[in-house]
């Protein structure tokens, strides 16, 4: 049911963990629905210099988390904001239709981390 690419990312997930002094943190999902993600970003000169993620969820949730972080790393904030779940799913050579929700979450976690970073920057300016 899963592509080889999905299984590869599930087996050896990239960028898992936390960033202690993260510039932005995004949290999505809840354990009730079976998926939960924490995304941490480090931003330098408007570029996502480092990204880490922690995921509670199925094979697809772990694989999309890994894929999303690989894609987002090195992107400008604007580019990362435009990253979509379809792009993540495509990069994994497809997901079972019922699992599209999981990839949605990984991208949402990233977008929330960026929002968190922006909010923090604003309050610093003030």
């Amino acid at each position: 049911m899963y592509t080889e690419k999905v299984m590869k990312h599930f087996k050896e997930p990239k960028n898992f963990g936390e960033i202690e002094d993260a510039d932005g943190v995004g949290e999505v999902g809840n354990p009730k629905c079976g998926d939960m993600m924490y995304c941490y970003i480090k931003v330098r000169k408007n570029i996502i210099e480092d990204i880490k993620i922690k995921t509670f969820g199925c094979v697809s949730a772990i694989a999309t988390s890994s894929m999303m972080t690989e894609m987002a790393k090195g992107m400008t904030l604007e580019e990362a904001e435009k990253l979509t779940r379809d792009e993540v799913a495509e990069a994994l050579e497809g997901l079972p239709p019922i699992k599209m929700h999981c990839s949605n979450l990984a991208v949402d976690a990233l977008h929330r981390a960026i929002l968190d970073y922006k909010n923090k920057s604003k309050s610093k300016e003030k």
Partner: protein
Amino acid sequence: MPGERKMIYLDNGATTKVDERVLDEMIPYFTEHYGNPSSIYSFSKKPRQAIEKARKIISGKLNANPDEIILTSGGSETDNLALRGAAIYAKNNGKTHIITTVIEHHAILNTCRALEKEGFSVTYLKVDNEGFINLDELEKAIRDDTFLVSIMHANNEIGTIQDISAIGKLCRGKRVYFHTDAVQSFTKVPIDVVEMNIDMLSIASHKIHGPKGVGALYLRKGVRIANLITGGSQENNRRAGTENVPGIAGFGKAVELAKPEHIEKMIKLRDYMIKQIEDSIPDAKLNGPRQKRLCNNINIGFRYIEGEGILMSLDMEGICVSTGSACSSKSLDPSHVLMSLGLKHEEVHGSIRFTISRFTEKEEIDFTVEKLKGIIEHLRKLSPLTPR
């Protein structure tokens, strides 16, 4: 590398390997004695005898009479026949209420839901945190228009064995029919339909090292139900269709091969596996009871992680298991059985069912637990829920 190592099959609750001796029993009925059992020439005598031999073995195991066994295509058809057959008959007599439980197999639950749409009312009894029903609640639920109580013998997910003797006695006293889905328990828990006051009972061949596509309904003499499959006069006019002769012969052989000492062997191995997991993996909790538990069922909730990941990781090691997690089901619904025990969603998501068979070896359990330790540790490192 995958394919090189022997596969370890720990999903015997889903289906089982056909015993070689069962297969040997079946083969002649494909190419040699292939006559239609209903034909009257002598060529059809052998297949006819094969069916009656199997019927005798099956009925003997239940302490029933051979003519109380209706052979079917499996567990789901049998459950449908019992419920719908009884329902059609009861409706003609003005009775429309069924009592069942929230932890039944979908063959019962979805049939009950369908019957509700057809005008029947159904009471779904709740269970305690180990999956047992309350006998007083059952008694209170029985009404004047109740015609059937259907309560499974042993649960397929958590192995809870209901006290069907007490349920049978209560139903007989109240003059309500008692059906039990014994698909998981047959040959694994002793059953005596007379002693236990059972009116109808469902069993299936492929759960006991017999072939798929064969099952049977025990229908106590005197109990009236309507036919579901109409046509020829097979099965004493109760289930039409040319008999699956090789399958039925195999089913009979499978029953004959099931021995009480297999139960003892499985209980020891089951308890050994539970202990190994509990001793070596933190925050792993047994779902279901420790006593009155099916001899081949182990169901463990691993906290902070999700079951599909565990299942797929075990699969990469050549180990087959199942999970109650929503993420692995086509519907994305978590196990209705585990939810009904009062577990939290995240506890249900991380649950894995291991079901052993009489062929399971201790070495296979040791290998599985060893791999499991690493898998659980790895997945917990990825999860934000794991306490630091």
